[in-house]
């Protein structure tokens, strides 16, 4: 069964499309990595996939149904970690998670138990009653991850979930994504970090200026890159100019008196 499908998605904010002709299918257990340079359209795709914005053309389907036909039902099955950890600074981590759990209609005692357990597993137990305003970026990111996982969703959309996390937490989250994939969750994973995508994703989609320039299984993409690394393949696909030449030009401008 296809958990999440994008069919010819196009989004226009101005006359020029921000993204166009984006199509992919995500089955239970798939982890799709979405890669692209800044401005490639990753966040626009994420907004359409979460139903926060409507595509100008095309459809987002979940289990065969257009998500906008039953947005509430779709979001019940969805967990989402946004790119920026924007949280209400005057709430404590526990209060924020309680609010999200209640909005999701979770049963109270079960929700409280889950929140406490998750906070402990994500090393936030001692800070759970402190105001989020005093949290570091990594701590906020962990709160967002818990909020996305709290209701055991079937589909996960993660936009730069490792941003701000320390090495230990990042390693845990990488393993978590792999495990969730193995447990049958469909995961859409946006990132700039190639090596992470390489390790945790079963498929990779590379974007350039709003269009898909490569979409293949991670192993196939490796084969495509030949003897070079995935990074070289990625740069070859998306870069407008030679990296070494750009670097030497920057150094020259720096030296101008």
């Amino acid at each position, binding site marked *: 069964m296809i958990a999440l499908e994008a069919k010819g998605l196009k989004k226009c904010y101005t006359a020029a499309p921000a993204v166009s002709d984006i199509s992919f299918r995500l089955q239970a257990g798939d982890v799709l990595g979405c890669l692209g340079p800044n401005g490639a359209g990753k966040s626009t795709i994420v907004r359409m996939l*979460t139903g926060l914005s409507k595509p100008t053309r095309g459809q987002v389907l979940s289990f065969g149904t257009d998500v906008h036909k039953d947005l*509430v039902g779709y979001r019940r099955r969805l967990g989402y970690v946004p790119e920026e950890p*924007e949280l*209400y600074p*005057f709430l404590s981590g526990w209060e924020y998670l309680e*609010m999200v759990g*209640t909005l*999701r209609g979770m049963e109270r005692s079960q929700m409280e138990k889950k929140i406490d357990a998750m906070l402990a597993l994500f090393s936030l137990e001692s800070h759970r009653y*402190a105001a989020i305003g005093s949290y570091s970026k990594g701590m906020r990111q962990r709160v967002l991850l818990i909020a996305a996982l709290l209701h055991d969703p079937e589909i996960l959309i993660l936009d730069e979930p490792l941003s701000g996390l320390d090495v230990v937490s990042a390693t845990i989250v990488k393993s978590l994504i792999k495990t969730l994939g193995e447990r049958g969750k469909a995961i859409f994973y946006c990132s700039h970090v190639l090596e992470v995508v390489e390790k945790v994703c079963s498929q990779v989609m590379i974007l350039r200026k709003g269009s898909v320039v490569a979409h293949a299984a991670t192993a196939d993409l490796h084969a495509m890159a030949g003897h070079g690394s995935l990074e070289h393949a990625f740069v070859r696909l998306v870069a407008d100019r030679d990296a070494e030449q750009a670097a030497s030009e920057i150094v020259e401008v720096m030296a101008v008196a």
Partner: protein
Amino acid sequence: MELAKRSWRQFSSGPFARLVRHSIDRILAGGETAEPGELDLGIGTLLALLASPGVFVAVFLFDRYGSLLLFLRGKPAHFDPYRASIPDEYFFIVLAMVIAAFVAVWKWDRLIPDRRDYANLAHLPIGQTRFFAANLCALALLAGVFAVDVNAAPALVFPLVVCAQESFGVGVMFFWTHMAAVFLASAFGFLAVFAAIGALMAALPYRAFRASSAYIRCAIVFVLMTLLMTSFSVPQKLTPAGHLSKAWSALPPPAWFLGLCQMLRGEKDAAFESLSGAAVVGLAAAALISLATYSLCYGRFLRLGAQTPTSLPARRPARSSWAFRLLDGFLLRSPFQRACYRFALRTLFRGGEQAFALGAFLSLGAILAAQTVLSAPHKAAWEAAVSAPSADVLSVPLIFGYFATLGLWFALGIPAPLRANWVFRFHIDPRCGECPALARRIIFTFLGIALGTICLPLYEHYWGWRVAAIHTAVVALCCGLLAEGLLARFRKIPFTCAVPKFKSHGIVVALLLVLGYFGFTSVTATVESWALADPYWFIAFVPVVLGAAFAIYQAKKTQIEIERNILFEERSSSVVETLNLQG
């Protein structure tokens, strides 16, 4: 000349001038949490709003001092413009002082550098003293601009209308003394708030200062409202000045500057002399305290506010969950209501701007209620048990209820950090239509607690159960109708919706609310006092209640389906619409 121009150009494009401009920008609009759609006015709107009270009052002066009107009313043989204008002079001084202080309170958080400043500026090769000097220059410039803005219109009109019949010399003297008094009063208001901030910064630890900031602001607003209300009572004590019975220390600061103004006009009087002395001492003290404490604490706050604070382990707060569980059982029916109700209460008490706005409304209500009680002709009614309370006494909970309802309604519309509202956009069905029900529950909880714990026992104590029950029911009914009217087309989750800088119908709504105040408090209380004496008068409430209920019903009924969706961004309706007729 060319050299001066070049020097100015060099200075204005240099790092210090750029820092001053940056400080002005951040004080006016760009605090750490400010973002488009939050309650941040542009400089033009802000200046217009601040100038408007003075302009309105200046226009009304023609009625009092217009030569034709004075002639028609029979001008006194010895019209002394200096003495006759004392109450108005006092009012302008109070207005100037209160507005300047209010701006300082409003921009409280922006006066101190925040984390973003540190992140952007601290690594640059600019010394801390330079930061401080730039911030100080920006504040002084802004204080000057606000003082000119608030006082310019009345400063021109007031001397013109008062001294229209006098010689040019008298007019000029009146003008400059008035200008001096209001400008110094503005400076005092601004600096006094600074001194208070500085003293608290010096006395409290960083976290405690930040945590108590909203409550301190509410307390200062309460003091400012009280000062504004003194415009009605203090001038009577000052005319004629020779009969001034109280020492200067017993009079509020605006009276000091009135004394200074009269002294500058050559009014030789012991009372004015002591008042003007107090003005000079007060102004100097405010300036010195603010300068000293600000220079002492600025570096500490820059450093502490700057470093990304590491969260310290916190203990579990005192459990209030039993109260929420009780409300979940009786009042809050859906997950939406349960989650948003908790969020609303936490924002109201911790959000800052929201608590500040509610505090301002409650302060105004408390002061008007207190004034009504004090000026009630049947003051004894509070002390001796009589059969029925007077209309003035009955109006007290109505006044408080009116401002509490309005304050809550207003505060619910002030957005908390908007970037965080994605959580509601993501989790909530925009067609759920539960926003009015939620806002109603929040308002009714506050009103219910106030009526049940203050109004009912107080009136029962003085006039027995019958009067207490009837009056509480009348206040609850009126407040309920007011809340229903205000929420008839409410479709926001509290604190999550962006607001436009200026709403075209805002002035009409404000006027309606001022007029509504008199109807809500005076008329209702008068009819109720008649009804308590003669129960047939209760019939008078029936058509009013039915009419109001019908109007609210109609407003809800005429709302089309799309207008019921939850709103996350409110836009002001444009005056001119461009139609796209090209298809």
